[in-house]
Structures are given as C-alpha cells and as structure tokens.
C-alpha cells in the first residue's frame, strides 16, 4: 500500500512538473515506473532522519537560484511549501538516474541523505 501511495504521489508530482515544462530530458519511462524504480528503503530512511532545518535553509539557497519563490514562468517549478516526501522522492529520482534533467541530476548527486532530509524539511515548512 505504501508503495502504491508513493507511486501515486510521485505520478502527480511528476505530472505537475511535466505540465510545467520539465521535459525529463528524453526520459522514456513513465512517472509510475519512475516511482517503482526509486530505492524505497532509502526513501524511508531519509524520511525517518532527524532533519536540521538550519542546514536545510542553507542548502535551499542552492535551489532558489532557479526555483523562485513565486515563479511566473512555468519552466522551473516553485518548490516553496512543497510536501517533504515529494521533494525527497524527486531528489532521489534524479540521484538514482530515474529522472533525467542534467542540472538536477548534478545537484542531487551531491546531496547526502541528511542533506536531502534537511532541504526537504525546510521547503515543507515554508
């Protein structure tokens, strides 16, 4: 059930991002497949971590260069106030090569589990 839910929310999140112009850079797999490809134990571990919101605020600075607080342009989604789990899932999808945007893959590949938990907690709290 947990897997199904994770798949569903990621599908919705991905669909939002796709509608916002995120092309997935030629990813052929559907978002439902993407979610099933994410390492779910890593997801659970990150969600269970004690997050440092101050660290999250600092890491968020890196995101905010592109993800504006209230974008008019839709090519890069607003992530302020996004659900923590959706952010963690999206970052893991980039980190694990399930989603293909090269900027996001590079960003995500440099984030530790603690950093993902921190930044997702920060944005969730906005």
């Amino acid at each position, binding site marked *: 059930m947990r897997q199904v839910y994770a798949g569903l929310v990621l599908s919705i999140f991905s669909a939002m991002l796709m509608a916002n*112009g995120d092309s997935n850079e030629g990813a052929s797999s559907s978002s439902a497949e993407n979610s099933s490809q994410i390492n779910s134990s890593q997801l659970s571990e990150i969600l269970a971590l004690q997050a440092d919101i101050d660290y999250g605020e600092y890491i968020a600075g890196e995101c*905010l260069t592109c993800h*504006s607080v209230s974008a008019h342009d839709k090519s890069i989604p607003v992530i302020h106030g996004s659900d923590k789990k959706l952010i963690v899932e999206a970052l893991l999808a980039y980190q694990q090569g399930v989603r293909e945007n090269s900027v996001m893959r590079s960003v995500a590949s*440099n984030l530790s589990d603690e950093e993902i938990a921190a930044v997702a907690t920060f944005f969730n709290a906005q």
Partner: protein
Amino acid sequence: MKHLSRRQFNKALGLGVASLSAPSMLLGQSKPKVVVIGGGAGGATAARYLAKGDLDVTLIEDSKKYTTCFYSNLYLGDVRTFDSITHGYEKLASDFGVNVVNGFAMEIDRAGQMVKLKDGSSVAYDKLVVAPGIDLVYDSVPGYSEEAAQIAPHAWQGGAQTQLLKEKMDALKNGDNIVMVAPPNPYRCPPGPYERVSMMAHMFKQKGMTDSTITIIDPKTKFSKQGLFTEGWEKHYSGVIEWIGADIHGGIKSVDVEAGTVETDFDTFEGQLLNIIPKQIAGSIAQTAELTDDSGFCQIEAESMRSQVDPNIFVIGDASVAGAMPKSGFSANSQAKVAALNIRADLLGTKVFPAKYSNTCWSLIGTDDGVKVGAQYAAVDGKIASTSTFISQTGEDAALRKTTYEESIGWYEGITSDMFG
C-alpha cells in the same frame, strides 16, 4: 588562517585581552555592520542573504538600476527587451531592510574598517563583502581605450554599453560585417562571446541581411562549448560566422576603431562594427585595497570566500579566483550564499556548514536552441573543485534544446528574484 568565533571572542575578552577591537554588538549599542560593495549577482544576493533583521546591512552600488550582463545577448538578438533585463534595488530596501547607498566605493581603509565613497562619505563595517565585478584593461588590445569603446563597444558590462552595441547593430545594413575581438582567459561568462555572435547572426537572419558576416578574432585557441556552438552556427547560420583562433591569426597587433580594422600577424580584418572585449581584472576597488594578486583577481579561502589577505573581507563573484568555478552570475550568486553563511557565523555565532557551490551557464544559439554546461563544487584541499559536471551534447533533438532554453528563462526569473527580492 585562524578566525575567532563569537564564542571564542567573548572568551578572549573575558580573559582580559583588551587590545582587540570589539565589534559594536559586544558593546550592546547596535547590530553588527556588514557592508557590501557592488549590487550585481554577487553583491545583491549577499545583501539579501545577510539581511535577516539581526545585522545592519549596507549595499553600496553606483547604479540606480542594474542591467544584468547575463541575458544581455538575448536583448542584442531581439529576444528580450532592455527593460526585462534591468532591475531596481527597491525591494532589497523595503522588504529586507537593506540600506541601499547609491554611490561609488573609492577606497577601503582596512585598518579602520571603513569604506570611503567618492562623495567623501564613509561607512564603517565589521565585515565587508567586495563584489565589484570586473574592470576592463582597455589597452590590453593595442589601440583600444575607454574613449574608443564609444565607437567600438565592449558591452561586457551591462547597461549603457549594451544599449550602445545594440544601437550600432541596428544601424547595420545588409552587406555590413561585424568583427569581434574575444577576450583572453580568465574572463566573465566563458560562453558569452560565442552566444553573442550567435545572437548577432540571428539578427542578420531575422532582417534578411544575407550578405553580412561576423568574424571572431580570438586570443585563445579554443573556447567554451566550442563543439556545440560550431554545430549550431553551421545549422542556423551557415557561412555567416567565422572563428579565427590564435594559432591561425598569430596574435592581435592592434585595432583602429575609426577605420574599423583589426590587425593581426596573419591579416587585417575590417568591419563596419567592431565589438572589442579586452582582458579583464577585478573591479578597481579590489585593486586599490590590495586584495588582488598578480593575476589582477582576488585569492579567497575555498571554504568561505574569505579574502586570503584580510579576514574581515569576503570577495565574491567575478573579482575572485574561485578555483574551478567560471566567472558567471550564477557562480557569484552561489558564492554569495557561502559568504553570507560565514559572515553571519562570524558576527552572530550561527552555524557554519560545508561550502556548496554550483553553476550552470545556459546559452542560446538560435531560436529555441538552448544549450547548457554546469557543475557542482566543493572546497577540496583548500581549492574550489568540481564534484560533478554536465554539458549539452551535439546532435540533441530540437525538443530538448527548446526545453533547455525554456529552463534558462525560468532560471533568469529565479536568479533575479533571488538577487533583488
């Protein structure tokens, strides 16, 4: 270099080390003072990330409006308006409480921790951010000068020069040619000259100027995103753009802006419009404050962007030597956040985290044909080193290139709202 944290500092005072000059906050009179010199991608971002109500932040900037150098090529190519790349500092003042001072910072009294402005006034600081961008070394191209830049614009600083180059481009007739002299490394925006000629060729194409050409005389033997630009030029503007590297022309001997000529060892090139982009160094205040090394740029500590010559000063953006990071608006914005984190920790005792830096440079080659190159960086063995990199590939399909261009539009909105609020 060892720096005192606030805790260590209080401890030192408690032990009776009275010779240290106390930051104003310890006297309980006012908030610690941070001054930021320069309101570009580095300085504006630093001011914004410093100003959280617990510091007295002053931003000194000579221009009332700031025209971004990034995206200015798109204005040259009639893809963006001038207004859309020009921004004000109103929100930094009204929404973030930054004291915005319109003036030119002439001198830094490092011993007295004061910035002196051209109008004779001074501003005291506990910590100082130096983000003056670049100065142009006009005579690095023999025959070129600040006066000559009114005839042959560099347009490598956003604003009046950008508009001047645009006016001169708009005045060209079919059959007129452009000659660009590209800058030597290191310079602001590595793909910028090549995006610019792309936008110049785009303008020719839009106006049906089929007999006009662009020649780039480059002091380098290769350039950023070379494969991508070369492919794009052939695809969109076949026969219009010719790039001549140093190994072919043998050296740039002189320019004559009145005659419209660029003389090299190999040949003399003639254009109705010359765009001369000379060698660059850190903005003059960094030079006069002796923050620069022999390269003309400022050495910093990779973990914090703190100047290697003065622990109370942080140098960010194009003026700094930031290891593997290119000089770009994105880099400056990223460095500003690391500097702000460390300044806040110095003055308020807040937490410090490992420096994380990032950069992406998007370039527009033709209509909806965008490419990008970028990396993440960290402080590794005292240097800013890349931890992962990426670049667009040749042969990508049109849909992906369009998405890349659209991503850059989102980035522009993101970074400018991150800078100016």
